[in-house]
Structure formats: structure tokens, C-alpha cells
């Protein structure tokens, strides 16, 4: 592993992984406690349309994907706020329309030769320098915004009615929050690909939730878990020549089942004591 650090692509991969982990910890925590996993999946898949647009029109990947996923996310949020109980159908439709748009646009892109798989399953080992800067910049903005709005987000996540009563602009903050989720997704697609985004965004916070006394502790804990999963996955992928995104997710899944098994074991032990 140490000699691998001499390669620029490996250093980039580690930096990308660490920043993605920070986002998983902070934004993923809000996704999990607000039960927004489906919406997040919808945004992630719809953002494929943005990838299509980026290639078809020849604009930078980050710009195209970011604007398209933001647009899709805002549409979804408007529906969620308007009719909560029909929102899942609509999210499902945008999810599919986004992907279909991406596929058709890539069909029509002249001289298209990009490896589609790298966006579906990530390519942390092939993140170009330019994208590293995008990732760092966006991560810093995302995490800073989430911290800036921490108390408001905490309040609307826990009891939005009470927050509204206390004069918090719940709808505005909700839109901002979903915006932060879309930015996070676009960054993490680079690491594990759009199909696996949901797993990386939700597994670390889900494990952390059980042991955390407060949301801030949950964020710190899930960031550390995400770093652990990312770096372990990266190391395994490098050593055994595996697809890095999938390896990272499998490591995270192993952590997930390990924590579930441990809980079951501890629970059994507790009930065994009379």
C-alpha cells in the first residue's frame, strides 16, 4: 500500500475518498434520520441525465451533472412538500426519465467513447486532477452549509411543526437541504458511481445512529466509518485488482452486517442474564 502512494492516481483516490466520507457523515446523517433514502436514490439516478447532457453538449462533467441533478431534486422536493403521500410515484418517474435521457443523449453523442461503467459504478482510481479540485471545493461548501444550518436542520428533522411554530422557514431550509444532497451525490458518484451512491450515503450513518447520543456525534462517527470503509475498500481493490466502487460498497456492507450481528449478540447476552 505504501508504495502505491507514489502514484498520483492513488493519492487522488485517497483524497477523493476522504472528502466523500466527510460528506457521507454530515449529509448522509440527515438523509438517514429524515428517511430520505428513496429521494436520494431518485436524485442519484436522475443525475445520469446530467452526464448525458454534459457529454452531448461538451460541457464539463461536474457542471452538467450538478445542474441537472439540482433541477431534478427541486422538482422532487416541490412534490414532496405539496403531496407527501403521492411523492414516491413521482420520484420514481423522475428517476427513470433522468436515466433514459442520459442513455439517449449518450447514444447521440458523436464519437462517444467514455466508459459508461465508470459513472454507474464509480472510478475513484481514475479521478482527474480537475475533478479533485471540484470535489474539495464542493465538499467544503456542503459541509460548511450543513454546519451553518445545523440547528435549523436538526429542528426540522426532529419536529418540523415545532420548528415552524418557532419561526424557522421550514420550506426554504428543506429546499436548501435537498440542494446539498444533490451536490453531495454528484461528488460521491465519482467515488462509487451513481448506482452505489445510496449505500455509501446511508450505511455509515445507519450504523452510527445506534450508538450516537446526538446528531453531531452521529455525524462524527459516520464520517470515521465512511473513511474506514473507503480506505479499506480502496486497499483491497488495489491489492486484488477489483473494481474499486463495488469493493468499497462490499466493505461497507460487511460493516453493516457485522454491526447487526453484534447487536443481536449483545441483545441475546443481555436477555440471558436473569
Amino acid at each position: 500500500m505504501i508504495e502505491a502512494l507514489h502514484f498520483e492516481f492513488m493519492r487522488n483516490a485517497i483524497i477523493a475518498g476522504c472528502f466523500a466520507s466527510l460528506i457521507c457523515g454530515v449529509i448522509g446523517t440527515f438523509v438517514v434520520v429524515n428517511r430520505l433514502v428513496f429521494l436520494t436514490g431518485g436524485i442519484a439516478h436522475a443525475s445520469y441525465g446530467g452526464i448525458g447532457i454534459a457529454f452531448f453538449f461538451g460541457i464539463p462533467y461536474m457542471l452538467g451533472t450538478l445542474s441537472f441533478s439540482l433541477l431534478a431534486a427541486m422538482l422532487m422536493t416541490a412534490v414532496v412538500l405539496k403531496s407527501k403521500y403521492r411523492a414516491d410515484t413521482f420520484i420514481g418517474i423522475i428517476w427513470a426519465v433522468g436515466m433514459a435521457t442520459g442513455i439517449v443523449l449518450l447514444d447521440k453523442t458523436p464519437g462517444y467513447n467514455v466508459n459508461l461503467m465508470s459513472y454507474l459504478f464509480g472510478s475513484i482510481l481514475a479521478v482527474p486532477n480537475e475533478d479533485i479540485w471540484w470535489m474539495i471545493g464542493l465538499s467544503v461548501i456542503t459541509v460548511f452549509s450543513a454546519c451553518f444550518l445545523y440547528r435549523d436542520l436538526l429542528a426540522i428533522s426532529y419536529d418540523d411543526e415545532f420548528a415552524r411554530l418557532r419561526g424557522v422557514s421550514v420550506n426554504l431550509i428543506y429546499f436548501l437541504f435537498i440542494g446539498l444532497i444533490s451536490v453531495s451525490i454528484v461528488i460521491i458518484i465519482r467515488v462509487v458511481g451513481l448506482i452505489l451512491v445510496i449505500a455509501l450515503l446511508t450505511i455509515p450513518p445507519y450504523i452510527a445512529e445506534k450508538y450516537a447520543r446526538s446528531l453531531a456525534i452521529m455525524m462524527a462517527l459516520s464520517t470515521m466509518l465512511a473513511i474506514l470503509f473507503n480506505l479499506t475498500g480502496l486497499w483491497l481493490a488495489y491489492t486484488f485488482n477489483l473494481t474499486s466502487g463495488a469493493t468499497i460498497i462490499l466493505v461497507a456492507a460487511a460493516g453493516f452486517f457485522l454491526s447487526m450481528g453484534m447487536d443481536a449478540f449483545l441483545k441475546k447476552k443481555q436477555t440471558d442474564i436473569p
Partner: protein
Amino acid sequence: MNEPVIQVAGLSFSYNGSPVLSDVSFDVNEKEFVALIGPNGGGKTTLIKLLIGLLKPRQGRIRVMGRSPDQVAGQIGYVPQDLNINRSFPISVMDVVLMGRLPFNRWTGLSKKDTASALAALECMNMDHLRQRRIDDLSGGQRERVFIARALATDPQILFLDEPTSNIDSHGRSELYGTLKELNKTKTIVVVSHDTMVLSSYVTAVACVNKDVHYHNGAEITEEMLETGYHCPVEIIAHGLPHRILKTHGNAS
């Protein structure tokens, strides 16, 4: 005599065309302890949400402390029904109570005053020793006390509680009502409850809510009131409501 703190006149409200409250009028005086009783679906929660400004009336007028509810939202305390809140949320008791101090200055964050007020509210409810605990580690009664502390952290003049005792055993109920009675010395209290038996020894007024509102000054809950409130006296007796809340059976009417 001061002006009533809550004035409701000709209030009507409906959800998707089906009326929940129609032509409701009543006044609540300062430092009253009002119980809202009535059947489920009778509009008690809707009435509370209208009074605190979370819902807007279709018709009629609501004045709280002389102004419209959303103008005074900062001066009232609200304790929602426990079951509407996500139980497994990882949040500490202190963070819940601090919500009562919203909105914060986003640049400077929590001030010393915010923390001090939250702590004082917790002390008032005898819950300060549990402030670092996660909320779902607490019992139903303790959780309810935390929600009341959150409402108190706003330093409200009126306290609205929606079924605060639904998750508490009977001993905890009287204890909670005792605490509310104590708070009643300085605050007006409006509480939705089904505990007609316990309530009658604490409240100063009773409002029977069932599409319309019958407001009674005085603590006694009579059989007649329950009948007009619930429109189904037989069912109440079948639910085992003890007779001893009534002064004597013969004198009730």
C-alpha cells in the same frame, strides 16, 4: 377584569370540505387552566393548532393576547402529541429543549442565555440530571416532561398541551397535572385530554369540543357535559369512567 387572553369568535374550519369545527366562539381568561375534552376526531387537536397559528381558520376570528396567533407564536408554548414525533431519532434531551430557543443567530450559534434558559426549563421539570441522555432512553413520562421543558424554554405566557398523558401511567398522570398546576400560577394552560377523572381536580374551566365548543367555567365535569361533548353517554360508561367524578348523581341536572 383583564381582557381575555384567548378570544375565538365564529370560528369554522374544514379539511377537504368536511367540517371539523363550525361556528365556535369562546373566551379564555388569563391564568385559567382549561381542559379540552371530547371524542376522537371531534376537533380538539385542530382547535389547538388553530389557536397557535399552525392552521389558518376558514372563517371567524382568533385573537391570542389581543393579536393574531402567528404574531404571538413566540410567546406561546406548545407540547405536541408524543406519537407524532420520530421516536428513534438520535437527539439528546438538551438538544430537544434547545429547540424551544429557536431561531438562533446562525453566525454566533447558541448564546449563553439560550443554554441557561434551556437548563432552567429542565430544572423546572426536574429533568436536568438527564440532559445528556438520548431521548429514546427515557420513559413516556420523562419524555413528556422534556417536551414541556422545551415549551417552557420559550418563556411562554400560554401553554398548549395536546394529550400529554397518553403514554403515562395513572401515578405519573397526577404527578404531571400537579406540575401543570404549579405552572398555572404564572401561565394560562390549555390541555387536550381524555383524563376526565384526574382533570376535574386541577382545572378551572372545561371546553367540550365536538364540532362545536361548549365552554364551562368551573372545574366540575358533569354527566350532562360529557353527553353533549361525546353525544354517546352509554359508550363512556362502558369504558369504565368512574361515577365518583360527579358530585352526586341526582344533582347533576
